[in-house]
């Protein structure tokens, strides 16, 4: 790697991959290469942006001396691609969810650590100002003993019984659980660590044939709070995905979504400056750090900026493989709970399908 320039591949040019490509390519310290099995947009990229573009992952690995890679392929393909990259000494940013089998997540976390490589997973909510502020408030102990949390995400993705892509197939790592619920789960892991138990987990299909459209669960932490998870991606009353966390403690109540952070304090906390007794509201205009290039929210740019900085300077990222593995294990805990209960579920069974590398 030249001193100030990261040779970076973006693999998989779907919805997230395109956005990553644009943000990474706009970064002043990157030299970006694209890879996607489908010709859709790849030819356009080669023609208009002039960036090298590969249809074959292995060919790209052989030809390009890469420093780092962003992997945004369908989730099922994450593990084998991440492994190949790490084995070649390439730093990896992988889209969420990390791996569908948490054993693989653990093995890859170890491999990255052994090789001394930077690892990151795209849980961008950890870069949203209001959720960062929530973390600061919790860590200051301002809420006293936190007893209960409500973690929610709603949005209008699957609104009718038609259409199938990998995102609507749980065997491929799609569905409401992996696509939506993983985000609030990851925030809970950030705030409280891994839960020790899951109960009453429901994964129901509403319109989908191959996956879940709504996810509910009760998570518990030993000597810590309990949390209700409530997620539905078939809710048209939301214009776009909305994630929100509410928590109650012995000294108050805290709420955050992407726009704002509201805190009610029974007593002001000496460890938390800038907040007084009673209601306190902080808005995104206040809480958000500016980025150099904006595409769809500061958080998407900030996470790539962090990754590139870590690759250039060493150091760690807030969303390393170890932290994403905690989320994969939490998801496994919920799936095991669901399977152990004779509850009525409308979800279809997991059926693995044979697909090509990119599965399109």
């Amino acid at each position: 790697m030249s001193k100030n320039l990261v040779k970076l591949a973006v693999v998989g040019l779907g919805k997230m991959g395109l956005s990553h490509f644009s943000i990474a390519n706009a970064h002043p310290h990157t030299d970006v290469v694209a890879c996607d099995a489908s010709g859709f947009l790849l030819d356009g990229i080669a023609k208009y942006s002039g960036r090298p573009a590969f249809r074959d992952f292995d060919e790209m690995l052989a030809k390009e001396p890469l420093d780092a890679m962003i992997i945004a392929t369908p989730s099922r393909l994450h593990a084998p691609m991440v492994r190949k990259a790490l084995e070649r000494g390439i730093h990896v940013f992988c889209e969420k969810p990390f791996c569908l089998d948490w054993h693989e997540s653990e093995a890859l976390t170890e491999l990255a650590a052994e090789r001394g490589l930077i690892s990151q997973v795209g849980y961008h909510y950890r870069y949203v100002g209001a959720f960062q502020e929530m973390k600061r408030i919790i860590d200051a102990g301002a809420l006293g003993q936190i007893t209960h949390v409500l973690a929610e995400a709603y949005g209008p993705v699957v609104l009718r019984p038609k259409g199938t892509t990998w995102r609507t197939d749980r065997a491929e790592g799609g569905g409401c659980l992996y696509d939506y619920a993983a985000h609030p789960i990851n925030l809970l892991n950030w705030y409280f660590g891994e839960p020790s138990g899951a109960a009453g987990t429901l994964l129901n299909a509403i319109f989908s044939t191959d996956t879940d459209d709504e996810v509910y669960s009760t998570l518990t932490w030993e000597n810590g709070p309990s949390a209700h998870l409530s997620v539905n991606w078939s809710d048209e009353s939301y214009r776009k995905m909305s994630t929100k966390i509410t928590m109650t403690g012995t000294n108050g109540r805290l709420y955050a979504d992407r726009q704002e952070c509201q805190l009610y304090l029974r007593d002001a906390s000496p460890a938390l400056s800038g907040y007084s007794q009673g209601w306190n509201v902080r808005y995104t205009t206040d809480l958000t750090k500016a980025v150099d290039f904006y595409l769809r929210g500061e958080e998407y740019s900030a996470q790539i900026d962090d990754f590139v900085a870590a690759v250039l300077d060493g150091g760690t990222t807030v969303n390393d493989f170890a932290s994403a593995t905690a989320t994969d294990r939490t998801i496994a805990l919920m799936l095991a709970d669901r399977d152990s209960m004779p509850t009525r579920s409308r979800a279809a069974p997991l059926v693995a399908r044979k697909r090509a590398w990119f599965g399109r």
Partner: protein
Amino acid sequence: MTLDRLLFGDNQFFGINHMSEEKARAQAMQFQDTSAIIGVLDAALDEGVRTFMCTTHDRIADICDHMRANPARYQDFRFYPCMPYAHKYANAVTEYGMIGAALHFMPDEGLFKTALRGASSLASKDIEGILKILVDVEMKMFRGLNTPVIFLQNVIVDLILGMDMTEVFTIFHDHVRKKYGAEPGYITMNMPRLYQALTAVGIENPIICSNINKIGFRTCGGLAAYEATLRDGKLRAIAMSIFASGAIPPREAIQWLSTLPNLDGIVFGASSRRNIAATKALVDEYFGVAA
């Protein structure tokens, strides 16, 4: 052409509020009925704000129908359409995949769709063809109405900008001019960078709408670079998010805007006649009464 100085925005009508989801929902409820939107547009028109800068949201089609049905009342009214309504496409991509989503929004008849479906890899190289068709699909709802400026939304503009596919802007530019006799406009969150890119592909004196506000909220690349571009560049600049979602008091926000060099237009949103009149009065006070 000359841009109107004061443009009326549409975020408040569609549950978009960058400050609070609660407020956004309350506004969505307030404007559930299209007649409530038309009531506010009528108030704007009566206050002398005649240009509506709006997303190509499905519900705008109903407003267009109303305008066509009352030509005398709205003869001076003009739309600045902003396309596409991105969430419509983003959600479709999750549901149908990339190519499926593109197909989903294509007109049902037509050779192009058939070609795309039949030989996707070949046909999909034709970004030019796809872009033109998508513009035409979004413009359908405005037929017979006055659309002197047609904007590309920031999600698309900034996606293309980041990818360095800036020649794609010339496709939009030429199509909007040739087919609609309109001026192309660009909404962005990265104004200085976009200005450079448009200039580099030969698009002169572009209409660029971007956040411009006193606290520098979402002025990416830095407020100083924005001010330098306004001062030294040759562009027609429109300021949006002027109150930074309510973080800046109206008088302070507009007074500050009036100190900027070469600002051509201001877009603002309001839900009541009182607020429209108040903003208009402040703009007249600091910028002088428009001729």
